[in-house]
């Protein structure tokens, strides 16, 4: 009974691959976004550096996880990449061609290459539209005749596991959270994107439903050769779905590595603390001391130098003096990058590895 995407007659053409398999699907460079909050009676301004110099590469068929706590800028990053929030600086290159720069707008036809799936909420679907109307909207906007789009919408429902005979004419309020999330995914896929940005797609769901949705996402990724940017605060979920992981703290990337590398040997003290804060699931092996104390600082006044230093167990004078660059972590080879003075040879941090010259 199941309809699959590959068997479906999609009314929109696929987006042609231009750069070939070695060309990264998405390159985001130096993304920057400040939010200005009008503050106080006399027009004093406070500035929140929501995203500060974020660069990200997503290869074809790859899933990149972005991990961090609330306020670390991961959701803003998602909206910047998708071009929903205009960036102050930076650029996004999609399959070798410019997607946007601060001065150019995104072409309506090319825009469909990147779609988003949001956290399940009451406002993730239009409460006044039936599921068919919701799913037909995108294709219609791209010139697909209404009747064709509606038929296609029913196929889409079937493909995400919602039998159209029962679901086509329902309104969002008549769905459970997991079902709504399936519709959210179908809506994003309706116009045949190549990259899905998933912003906490399973965070609002119950655990048993979470597994259903994750399994669906994995199956769709393979079937449609999609790439994902998967944003979550849940390390277990990211570990399950991502090939590569980016850890953010207060608007900056602090560590980046393959899933295997980072879960085997996290290098940044924040990443370590984050991993250590994960409950064990075994009542006989409980966490005995909190890995970190205190809350993340106010992003309006981030600490100088390394933004993590106020909570960092190994902070030293050098950490306050300058911001550590995101650089290759010393012993590991490729792909593992960390922004921590303690990992930079010759940084002056007492735990830093000796510079290569000194070793010989």
């Amino acid at each position, binding site marked *: 009974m199941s309809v699959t995407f590959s068997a479906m007659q999609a009314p929109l053409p696929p987006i042609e691959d231009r750069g070939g398999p070695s060309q990264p699907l998405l390159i985001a460079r130096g993304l920057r976004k400040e939010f200005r909050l009008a503050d106080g009676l006399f027009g004093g301004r406070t500035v929140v550096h929501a995203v500060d110099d974020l660069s990200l590469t997503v290869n074809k068929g790859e899933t990149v996880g972005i991990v961090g706590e609330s306020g670390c800028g991961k959701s803003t990053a998602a909206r910047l990449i998708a071009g929903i929030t205009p960036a102050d600086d930076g650029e996004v290159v999609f399959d070798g061609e410019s997607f946007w720069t601060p001065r150019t707008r995104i072409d309506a036809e090319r825009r469909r290459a990147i779609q988003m799936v949001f956290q399940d909420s009451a406002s993730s679907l239009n409460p*006044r539209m039936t599921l068919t109307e919701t799913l037909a909207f*995108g294709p219609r906007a791209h010139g697909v005749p209404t009747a064709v789009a509606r038929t296609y919408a029913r196929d889409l429902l079937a493909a995400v*596991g919602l039998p159209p005979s029962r679901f086509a004419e329902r309104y969002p309020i008549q769905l*459970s959270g997991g079902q709504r999330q399936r519709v959210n995914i179908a809506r994003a896929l309706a*116009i045949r994107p190549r990259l899905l940005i998933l912003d906490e797609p399973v965070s609002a769901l119950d655990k048993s439903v979470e597994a*259903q949705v994750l399994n669906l996402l994995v199956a769709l990724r393979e079937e449609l050769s999609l790439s994902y940017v998967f944003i979550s605060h849940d390390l277990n979920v990211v570990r399950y779905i991502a090939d590569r992981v980016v850890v953010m703290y207060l608007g900056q990337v602090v560590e980046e590595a393959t899933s295997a590398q980072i879960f085997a040997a996290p290098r940044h003290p924040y990443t370590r603390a984050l991993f250590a804060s994960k409950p064990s699931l075994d009542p006989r092996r409980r966490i005995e001391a909190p890995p970190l104390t205190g809350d993340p600082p106010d992003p309006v006044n981030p600490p100088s130098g390394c933004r993590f230093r106020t909570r960092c167990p190994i902070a030293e004078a050098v950490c306050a003096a300058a911001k550590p660059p995101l650089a290759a972590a010393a012993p590991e080879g490729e792909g593992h990058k960390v922004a921590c003075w303690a990992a930079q040879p010759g940084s002056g941090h007492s735990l830093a590895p000796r510079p290569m010259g000194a070793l010989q």
Partner: protein
Amino acid sequence: MHGTFDSSDIDAVIVPVRHFSYRRVVLGRFMRQPIAMTAALILLAIVLAAIFANVVAPADPFQTRVARRLAVIGTEGRWLGGDELGRDVLSRLIYGGRISLSMAVLPVAIGLFVGGFLGILAGYAGGRTNMAIMRAMDVFYAFPSILLAVAIAGALGPGMMNGIIALSMVFIPPIARMAESVTTQVRSYEFVIAARLSGASTGRILREHVLSNVAGPILVFASSQVSVSIIAASGLSFLGLGVSPPYPDWGLMLSALRQSIYVNPWVAALPGAMIFICSVCFNLVSDGVRRAMEVRR
């Protein structure tokens, strides 16, 4: 196993679909509110009477009879008394509904279209467009509504058309402000962002996603303004800035009859009572609609 897509087991356990139309639900909830329903029925009666005034009214509202001047309530042929020229007050009240209600509803309707359009535009566009539109609205907002209506009507001169124009100007800013605030909210919802991501044009998004979600609150707000409008419209006529004699209008009648308030207070109070009843009823009805539209879980 591709079990994910097989959802034959989902059905056994999920809420049975209740196919319902949103409008029917709201209507049903509205009808379960006795006070709002009563108000709606009273309004309906007044409106129907005004529309079919030539059938309902017992006498010609323009026919004067000296003998019946200021006739008391219950006089034969002048069941609700006679006015200062001996015309039938009951018939004039019924006919008066035509003008008074039009003067109350039309400005709000105009305000709804113009203010709604401006507000949705400002709310969806945001940024500078929003600033320009909303600051312009604020200029009008600075004056009390009645004062503003009087000032504009005074500048335009008396007459029903000018009264309606003056009142429309009064109702555009508050409705625009209301529309702006709900649109700003809806604009931030994920389904609107998803629609923008899909590459749909702004016009299409406004038509299909935004309008259906902001129309309800804006309409309810506008309908609550009718109760203000009816008083303002009567006020203009009372001051001689609206309809001119001999046309029957509640505000005008009140103005004329107030001189006989010591002779025949009950008759003089009647047009005022009509204004009061309509205003309160409009208020109760719009309140009832608002309550019926509330999302309950």
